[in-house]
């Protein structure tokens, strides 16, 4: 099962190491992890995407809670949250393929942020499905490089996590 954990932590040195180490020790592979300051600069929020069974994940969540610098953990339900990822992709683009690639980028509301004789750098944001769908279309042209920020997510509505 894919899970998206939103973890509120104190913005202190070593916190990321402690969290990553806990996942590693229990044999979990983190799909992606994104960290940044929150509205309160003394706090950071991590969005951790993992693929795990429910009961081992519950054990890790409990262990995470025990870390002194961890304040709150929420397992975000995809149905009631918004998730996004920013992706940069360098795509081979020759004179015959440029137009076609530009069209795809437009359909996915992406942006071409760099143009050079042999390639485009494309920026796109979206949820998992959208990114996957776009990658599938772009790959045949020659995907030279791919960089992803990892998922970030937020619950819908006015409630604050």
């Amino acid at each position, binding site marked *: 099962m894919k899970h998206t954990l939103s973890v509120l*932590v*104190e913005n202190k*040195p*070593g916190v990321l*190491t*402690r969290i990553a*180490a806990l996942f590693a*020790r229990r044999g979990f592979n983190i799909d992606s992890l994104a960290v940044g300051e929150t509205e309160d600069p003394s706090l950071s929020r991590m969005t951790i995407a993992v693929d795990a069974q429910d009961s081992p994940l519950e*054990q890790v969540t*409990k*262990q995470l*809670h*025990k*870390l*002194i*610098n*961890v*304040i709150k953990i929420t397992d975000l339900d995809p149905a009631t949250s918004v998730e996004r990822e920013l992706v940069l992709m360098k795509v081979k683009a020759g004179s015959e393929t440029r137009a076609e690639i530009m069209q795809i980028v437009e359909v996915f509301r992406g942006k071409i942020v760099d143009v050079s004789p042999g390639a485009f750098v494309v920026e796109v944001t979206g949820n998992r499905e959208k990114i996957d769908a776009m990658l599938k279309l772009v790959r045949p042209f020659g995907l030279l490089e791919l960089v992803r920020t990892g998922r970030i997510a937020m619950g819908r509505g006015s409630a604050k996590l």
Partner: protein
Amino acid sequence: MNAARALLEALKREGVDTVFGFPGGTIIPIYDALYDFDIDNILVRHEQGAAHAADGYARASGKVGVCIATSGPGATNLVTGIANAYLDSVPMVAITGQVRSGLIGTDAFQEADISGITLPIVKHSYLVQRAEDLPAIIHEAFYIASTGRPGPVLVDIPSDLQLAEIDYDADRAQKLDLPGYKPTVKGHPKQIRTAALALAEAERPVIFAGGGVITANASEELRELALYAHIPVTTSLTGIGSFPEDHDLSLGMLGMHGTQYANYAITNCDLIFGIGVRFDDRVTGRLETFAPGATIVHVDIDPAEISKNVAVDIPIVGDAKRVLAGLLTEIKKHSPSPDRHLPWMEQVAAWKRAHPMTVRQDESEELLPEYVVQKIWEVTKGEAIICTEVGQNQMWAAQYYLVKHPRRFITSGGLGTMGFGFPAAIGAKLARPDLTVIDIAGDGSFQMTLQEMATAVNYGLNVKVCILNNQYLGMVRQWQELFWDKRYSATCMVCQPDFVKLAEAYGAEGYRATRPDEVEEVLRVALSSDAPAIIDFRVKREANVYPMVPAGGSIDQMLVGEDL
């Protein structure tokens, strides 16, 4: 004032009067401040000894134990002791020197990333980055180490920061800022009511008490509950002493080397009331056959323990003392009749009669280790603090020294650290100078930390080491005998020092007993002296610990040797 001095002031405010440590380059500023400060440093002979002594001190006193070491090798020598305290949930603050802040990360002389190394074995750790934070960090460290589920906290301090002049505001330093740390101490009232009803209605109940009861100082409440509701009590290894083992309701220890009656009771009960325990694999054996028909109530302060190993029916997260007090009030409302579970109590009594833990020493035969333990119990009237090493000695001590009070059985349960008992005994003696302190040891384990005899003699600490000397790494040999075709690979240790002369070389007293009729006399003479001593009991070399549940087996399927 410099930060080193402020650290000592903060320790003082935490009620510290004794620390265990060993100096070195990066911790000199703190030792310099200690030179004329009224906290005693017990100078050990190896940093592992400092950590174990702090551990023994903490378990015997209920206070936080403090150990100090220099950077690099000093800090890494603490690692075993920190892991030991972590696995047994012992409150400890370990203070280490670190290379100057500017040198961190450069592989400087005696640099080791001790906060990185200890990451998985501490409750929390600090690498101090600003000198002015140090006093507040010390208070946080003590608070974290001693509350919730206790554990070790490491404070690593670069040497230049120890020397920095800071503005020390004692009161401000004590204001804690820990937004992510709020242990649940009060059990959920509804869960407590549910558990009380289940206890009152159970037909075949057993209480299973662990180290958490001792940590929470909840033995009195446990006793009240057991006596009021008339329920037999078994304990884990670290729970020994949480309930008086000489009481009729005591079943002793359960699990791999538990009593037969405790294991039968657990297997056949309809309700386990587990408190301050973690259902460790040495206790449960094969999980599928562990207490198959039982409703499981589990009280623990650590939510991560609930349903970790066994599925729990009635979980209660909270402090053992508070939960037990609440439970007692609730169960009284049901006023369970004392004979509601008469057949069960008769069954338990029958198991006890049929499979007693008896010592069968023939006066003309070789000395049996369990006979020695029993004599130690008699001579000390069951009132001593018993520390143990690890292996057969530990199990015989657990089985045959019937502990009557909490904080009087100090053993490395989780990590199983050979060499723990002796330094722990030194710490325990400092915490409780009024009590007789004995380390029940194996010859192998004792040789791992015996250098601390110099510490004991140095400070006049009356600790008696009773070696059950079988000239084997006995417990491993026992496994090899039973499961590895008697291939005694690397377990025979006939080459050993003359322990009597060794004691004398350190300025302690040495004794030896080889025949059963010598045991009591030797113990009386040794215990009547104030000096630390080693007593070398030459026991039957291939004696085994029984009962025994083979690893991974069902706990009601025990090997019982020839006699039991």
